[in-house]
């Protein structure tokens, strides 16, 4: 329990740090974002809305400490301000909508690349020096050493523009009405295929490489020799003995990787015009919608922290040493 409490406290501090960064950064620049957004809205925004926005940013009268208190109070009430590009809708609603699409994209890509990469890494380590290890491992790591933007662009060019196998963008066929029917679900999967593939291509190397290295370091352990001496089948030794222990650090890294996957999803969404957080953020940057940009930092931070916490719980379940108080 003490372990969990410590972690939870740490995550609260991290969230508070992100919120404070949102408070400090605009104050290092000249002018205040609320007024800048108001000026850009050219009369669309009422003075009351400007007041609300100023409160959400904490740009009120009074000294810095009072401003900070206003800002934090607003935040604790879930008030993220009003979005300018979707005026007059609140930022939080739009962020939630975009988050679902990003979760679909990033979530399925993470699970897929984790499963595939870990399996490939285990095979590469088991047949160390074989053809698969020689070429597969290097290819996986090389693919990882680039920006998701390049991979997504190249896949977009090849599969969507040149060969026209996949759609050029969006999340589903706009002639279908969203609902729980096969046509719509099929369309969602079809439209998600290329974006998911680009994230998988980028992130598979990480799992492959770390699984391979963990497992190679285990292969000389005595308990594997014993397993062999007992006459167990190679397959059983691989899955039940070697891979089982080697996968622990990978599971650990799984939670940590969420931040990276979200970043990868951002670039991919921009390329494929996919209505997730990344695309909305891009539009927000162009529209100078500061309320939205600040909101995305809190949302992404929250996502990373939640997944880290889930990782902690998983660890607690797997590693008995942590349960000792």
């Amino acid at each position, binding site marked *: 329990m003490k372990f969990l409490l410590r972690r939870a406290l740490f995550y609260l501090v*991290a969230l508070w740090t992100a919120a404070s960064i949102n408070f400090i950064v605009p104050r290092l620049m000249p002018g205040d974002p609320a007024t800048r957004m108001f000026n850009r809205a050219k009369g669309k925004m009422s003075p009351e809305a400007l007041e609300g926005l100023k409160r959400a940013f904490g740009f009120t009268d009074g000294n810095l400490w009072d401003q900070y208190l206003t800002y934090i109070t607003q935040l604790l009430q879930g008030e993220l301000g009003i979005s300018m590009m979707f005026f007059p809708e609140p930022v939080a609603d739009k962020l939630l909508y975009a988050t679902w699409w990003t979760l679909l994209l990033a979530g399925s890509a993470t699970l897929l690349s984790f499963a595939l990469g870990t399996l490939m890494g285990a095979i590469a380590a088991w047949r160390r020096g074989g053809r698969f290890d020689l070429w597969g491992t*290097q290819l996986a790591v*090389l693919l990882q*050493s680039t920006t998701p933007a390049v991979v997504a662009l190249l896949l977009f060019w090849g599969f969507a523009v040149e060969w026209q196998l996949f759609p050029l963008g969006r999340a589903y066929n706009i002639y279908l009405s969203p609902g729980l029917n096969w046509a719509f679900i099929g369309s969602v999967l079809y439209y998600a295929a290329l974006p998911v593939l680009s994230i998988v291509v980028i992130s598979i190397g990480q799992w492959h490489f770390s699984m391979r290295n963990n497992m190679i370091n285990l292969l000389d352990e005595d308990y594997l020799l014993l397993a062999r001496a007992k006459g167990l089948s190679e397959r059983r030794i691989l899955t039940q003995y070697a891979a089982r222990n080697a996968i622990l650090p990978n599971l650990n890294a799984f939670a940590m990787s969420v931040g990276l996957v979200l970043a990868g999803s951002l*670039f991919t969404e*921009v390329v494929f015009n996919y209505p997730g957080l990344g695309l909305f953020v891009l539009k927000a*940057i162009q529209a100078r919608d500061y309320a939205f940009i600040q909101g995305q930092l809190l949302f992404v931070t929250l996502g990373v922290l939640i997944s880290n916490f889930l990782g902690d719980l998983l660890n607690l379940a797997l590693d008995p040493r942590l349960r000792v108080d």
Partner: protein
Amino acid sequence: MAEASTGFITFVRSIWRHPKGRIGLLLLLLLVSLSILAPVLAPYPPDRVVGVPLTPPGLEHLLGTTRLGKDVLSQTLYGGRVSLSVGFFAGLLATAVALVIGVAAGYFGGWIDECLTFFMNLVLVLPAIALIIVIASSLESGAGPLMIALIIAATSWAWEGRLLRAQTLSVRQREYITAARVVGEPHWRVMLMHIVPNLTSLITSCFVLGTLYCIVTEAGLEFIGIGDPQAITWGVQLLHARTSNALIVGGWWELLVPSVMILATGAALALINFAVDEMSNPRLQAHRYWVGAQKQGGEEP
């Protein structure tokens, strides 16, 4: 200082002797020299309209022109200067910060370690890209390449710091460190002369991977439009290829050329890192002679 530099040269030499490391170094050398020689090699000024828009690669324009009629080859050569130097600078900066904080945390231990480790974990858990977007978009005129590099360095050093801390912890246990302290050497000297030299391969690895991360992240951020659209870098080239819809109208070269450069840079640095990794942990090698040795031991089926 002389000792440190000869140590570094031997280190580079051993990367050179490693087959993957040699390919990586050669590739990197090629990319760097192309960028340095950009003013000599580039046939046109990179920022001017010098031809018919979207000319396919040919004799007039070896790698074609952009949708705005700029020469892709010249842009790519000049773009490498900014992309590479900014990446190396940011990688160096991140490694330096990581080195100071990581070694201090591991060496001193106690409450200093507690505080620094807490700080590193905090930076690690904050989503870097989302943070960069907040900072860069609050700058009135967009963020230039240098600004992006600084922000990337400031948000990416933490994992390197944790690795260096862990390694420092194990080096610190050794007897000659105690001996140096007993003789009365000051802390800074023990860290600089006795601990840091033992971290060489890890520091190199951190620097190589850090630079790699900075280069590709900078390109990605510029691609989504966070950077200064007037700058000439690989990322901005990708941005223009996207915003001008060059791909849809068939101008694949505008995308492919900077992409290949980014991929090649990533590959070069990854290969060098492979070499460093395998040198410090020979068990990771995938060479056939290793398998041969194992077969003699009768361990592998």
